[in-house]
């Protein structure tokens, strides 16, 4: 299991043990993290699972691919350098301890 922390728009923190291979979006929705909409179900087609990655593990997250970069242009909240779509980040040992701050608005 890979432990990560979500911080929802109200500031509430949730520590989640994620099965390797699951996406951060799946971990968030399966654990009731508020603020993630994930309308498209994880196919990188809606930009409503927008998070900001923080903490020492953020630099270990693999870089966004073209499809994610295109969708990140469509996020409603501020697009920052650490903006990511949580459906595109998979649980793996190197991101242990990652902090994901859920964007304050998704759509």
């Amino acid at each position: 299991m890979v432990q990560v922390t979500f911080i929802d728009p109200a500031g509430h923190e949730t520590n989640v043990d994620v099965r390797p291979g699951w996406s951060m979006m799946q971990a968030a929705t399966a654990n009731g993290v508020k603020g993630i909409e994930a309308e498209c179900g994880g196919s990188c087609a809606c930009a409503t699972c927008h998070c900001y990655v923080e903490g020492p593990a953020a630099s270990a997250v693999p870089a966004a691919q073209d499809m994610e970069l295109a969708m990140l242009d469509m996020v409603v909240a501020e697009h920052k350098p650490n903006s990511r779509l949580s459906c595109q980040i998979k649980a793996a040992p190197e991101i242990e301890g990652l902090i994901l701050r859920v964007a304050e608005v998704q759509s």
Partner: protein
Amino acid sequence: MSAFCGIEGLVLSSVRPVITIAAVGGAKEASTGRARMFKFDPYSPEVDADPFEAYRTLREEYPCFWSPEANMWVLSRYEDIVTALSDWQTYSSAKGNLMTELPGRAGATLGTTDPPRHDRLRALVQQAFIRRNLEVLSEPIRDIARTTAGALAGRSTFEYVSEFSSKFTVRVLFATLGLPIGNEQEVRDKAVTMVQSDPVTRAKGPEHIAAYNWMQEYASKVIADRRLNPQNDLISHFSTAEIDGDRLDEREVLLTTTTLIMAGIESLGGFMAMLAYNLSGLPEVQAAVVAGPELIPDAIEESLRFNTSAQRFRRNLQRDVELHGQTMKAGDFVCLAYGSGNRDERQFSNADVYDLERRPKGHLGFGGSVHACLGTAIARLAAKIAMEEFHLVFPKYSRVHEKLDWMPSSTFRSPLKLELAVH
């Protein structure tokens, strides 16, 4: 539990669960050495009518189950299904995703390819299905809904599937794709027939194959026309697209177009029938969404969880997988029972209760991960507008019959007919 809910046992048909005492043999039986008294046959009319008791047995007693009738493993727990959806390298779609696949289709559509080929196809069509690019369709869809519902005004009873949802979905698809008007009913009938399967032979029958071939012919004429007379629409774009100088091959264009037509009519129609089925059996929920149309999106999400029309899809294993004490072998097919994962108490509390206030996230009503339904946004938009307009004409309605005839399909579940009485 909220005020707006219903217990499954009260609202579903009276068909009893499909648990039979049977000695079931087969290769996997020998390999596991377990005598089984339970069978799960996705081709049986009993499962078409009510799979939920069988799903419960699968989840609780046989979470990794070999079904000789389906000739595949069945995964029924939410966690196992999400894990499989997340791992397309192991659980491949390239040998088909429909439980009973159509000939020649695997490998040429979005749902039947793996990345990176899948991503290449998806990149071509995805833009057209993103929510903000669909807003322009809202008013045309509303006009269609208003006209279709309005034509039924004054009736005391009507058949929802043929007289409302089918007419609505086929008109929406024709408007969206700019298809020539005239044979909508025929296109609809073929789309519905091609997804069905024969419960006796456990395969596609001649009528299903004929419908599929007819649809391919129809799609090929549309594609030829768009190439001659390109318009600013999805099929024109798709049929002439090149990526990095690499044009889609004819089979990809043809079968993806065929699948878009099938999904646009059958899948949306099936879902709308399930939504109306739920609302017509849950008077409190119905009254709440009629009084507060802003609650319709919540009803849509809970219906997708509670009673999705896309019940089961399949994958093909690319390596051996150990799960719940069983060994699934490379090459085996695996059924992902979305309809069961959506009722898994480990994920959804009071899962057999329709709760309008649940607002479920992460449900499997559209599948998930790379192969999540392409049409999530248009399906939600069209279903919402349809019910808003439907409720303006029919603010109170109920089912005429409790026992319904269900579509014979190993993949999808929806009633063939839904007679409604107006109050």
